[in-house]
């Protein structure tokens, strides 16, 4: 972990006020280790989060980073093995029912009730949350209209398209006006048009002051939607902040990567002379590639090609990535982002 990342991650818990009013989500050293026959598997290794009410917060990380386990713990369906968490000021372990009353959850899987129609899915969910039958019918109609499911109201949940099912899942999570809305990979597996439509829905909800936590492995989704982001990998928060803060934190550098035909010999990275050059933050050699983090990227690529040629290495491919969440991830982990 880089110094900046450590600072950002360390800053996160201390900056939040005490759990309670105005706080949507708060965690302290939250952990989950799964017991397995061949040794324990740590899925979440001490996560500290602070999300004020009204914020749209994103957990960004590759598949298997521990995002779903984290959301599982916050929504009371996964029992933490360490640390604490509060949602809407309520401890998720001590009072799971209290938490469930105050949250709406859009699961990653399609967990619609397949035995029921679209309308019934909304009506019964409303009734589970204490609305009378007549009120539930009214609420269901309102949700169906708002989410553009009018012509599918009598369809069975099994007959919906992927996008319709996702809209119904979101509508269903909103029946009882939750204080905090959780969405686990809301647009995974959807076509681009449907994804943008869902983004619009989330933006409207956010504008209405809805507190939202979403997980995503799409960088552009996190960038397009979230007020703040926590970058997670291997069960840990690598950095947290706004997109701009994250980019600033890692120096807003362009990342230039050159891959050679063979392994990079020791000393080649130094021999390029790039390390000492102004505007270059970091030079890393890794197996067959050299990666340069530079705020002034001009000419770097040429230097790398020349240095390789001098050492008898031809270039297989080269890439230059402008400052983005992807470069942030590269900088934090030293690895390419895998979706």
């Amino acid at each position, binding site marked *: 972990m880089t110094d900046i990342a450590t600072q950002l991650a360390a800053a996160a818990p201390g900056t939040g006020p005490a759990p309670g009013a105005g706080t949507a989500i708060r965690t302290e050293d939250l952990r989950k280790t799964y017991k397995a026959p061949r040794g324990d598997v740590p899925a979440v290794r001490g996560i500290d989060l602070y999300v004020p009410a009204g914020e749209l917060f994103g957990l960004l990380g590759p598949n298997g980073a521990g995002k779903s386990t984290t959301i599982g713990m916050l929504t009371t369906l996964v029992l933490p093995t360490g640390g604490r968490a509060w949602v809407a000021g309520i401890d998720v372990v001590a009072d799971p029912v209290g938490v469930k009353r105050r949250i709406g959850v859009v699961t990653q899987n399609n967990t619609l009730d397949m035995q029921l129609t679209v309308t019934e899915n909304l009506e019964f969910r409303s009734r589970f949350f*204490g609305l009378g039958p007549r009120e539930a019918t009214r609420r269901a109609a309102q949700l169906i209209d708002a989410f*553009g499911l009018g012509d599918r109201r009598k369809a069975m949940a099994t007959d919906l398209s992927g996008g319709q099912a996702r809209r119904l899942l979101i509508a269903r999570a909103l029946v009882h*006006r939750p204080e905090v809305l959780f969405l686990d990979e809301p647009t995974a597996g959807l076509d681009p048009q449907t994804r943008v439509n869902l983004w619009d829905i989330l933006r409207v909800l956010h504008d209405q002051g809805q507190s939202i936590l979403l997980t995503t492995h799409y960088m552009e989704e996190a960038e397009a939607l979230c007020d703040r982001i926590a970058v997670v990998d291997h069960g840990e928060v690598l950095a947290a902040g706004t997109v701009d803060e994250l980019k600033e934190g890692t120096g807003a550098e362009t990342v230039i990567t050159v891959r050679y035909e063979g392994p990079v010999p020791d000393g080649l990275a130094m021999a390029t002379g790039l390390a000492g050059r102004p505007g270059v933050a970091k030079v890393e050699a890794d197996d067959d590639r050299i990666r340069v983090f530079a705020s002034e990227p001009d000419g770097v690529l040429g230097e790398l090609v020349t240095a390789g040629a001098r050492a008898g290495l031809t270039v297989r491919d080269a890439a230059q990535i402008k400052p983005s969440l992807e470069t942030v991830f590269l900088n934090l982990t030293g690895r390419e982002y895998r979706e």
Partner: protein
Amino acid sequence: MTSTTPTITPPAGDAGQSEPGTAAGIAALIAEAPVPQPTLPRTFAAMMAREFRVLRRNAAGTFMRTVMQPLLFVFVFTYVMPKIGGGVMFGSAGAAGAGSVNFATILVPGLMASMLLMQGIMAVTFPLVMEFSWQRTIEDRALAPVPIGILGLQKITAGAAQAFIGALIVFPIVLVVHAAGQAPHVHVTNWPMLALILVTASLLTAALGLLLGTVMDPRKMQMLFAAILLPATMLGCVYYPWAALHQIRWLQFLVLINPMVYMSEGLRAVLTPGTAHMPMWAILTALVGGTAVFGYLATRTFTRRVLN
């Protein structure tokens, strides 16, 4: 269905297309939401209402499932067999009991017990295995504002209701379908006791169904028939009274671990008091105690299974 919210804009432009929500409509959802007051009884009742809605929707399938088994059994054993000269009699051959009893009389309580088990398990275990499979639709209900244990109890209650109905369906069938002179001798003197036995037996099978649904590996569902349902039924005093097993002493003791025995014998005691049956205290202890033990174990394993 008309909406009471005037701010909702109908889909403009491509009418008929499923447009995603309008901003105003979605904003109104937040602003005009009713304030929910969930209480445990309300949520529980809503979940039961959901079960009955699904049962009503699948009425044809449910009816087939509950009627075919007793209908065919009764038809073969009390109509076909006596007609072709293979009628079975108990008592006349020296078995324990008070005098000669026709097979229909033996079969009525046994068949009801068998229906209880079958329906209890069908109603709870099969849907549960689906809910725990890869999409984990169980999470939908698990997010309702009640403890997970209550959700387990709700599943037992719903399953017991279906088992209860399944057992009652046996009555009209046995009274109508039989060969001349083969009518069962059913004579209820203690109605509250019949109700008690039916209710506890229904709860017991549903609790067993929940336990099986949570501990069984979904990929080994076919084992359910071979390892549980078939032995429980064949060795559950469905087709013979328990007392008649005194001829095979070891088996008479062995079957005591089978909950089915107490259901069959309990129903035998209240429906056909003329037949030999186990003492009532043993039956009630097993049914009530079994319900408590299986209910406790089932809700515990269910909770563990839902919460990772």
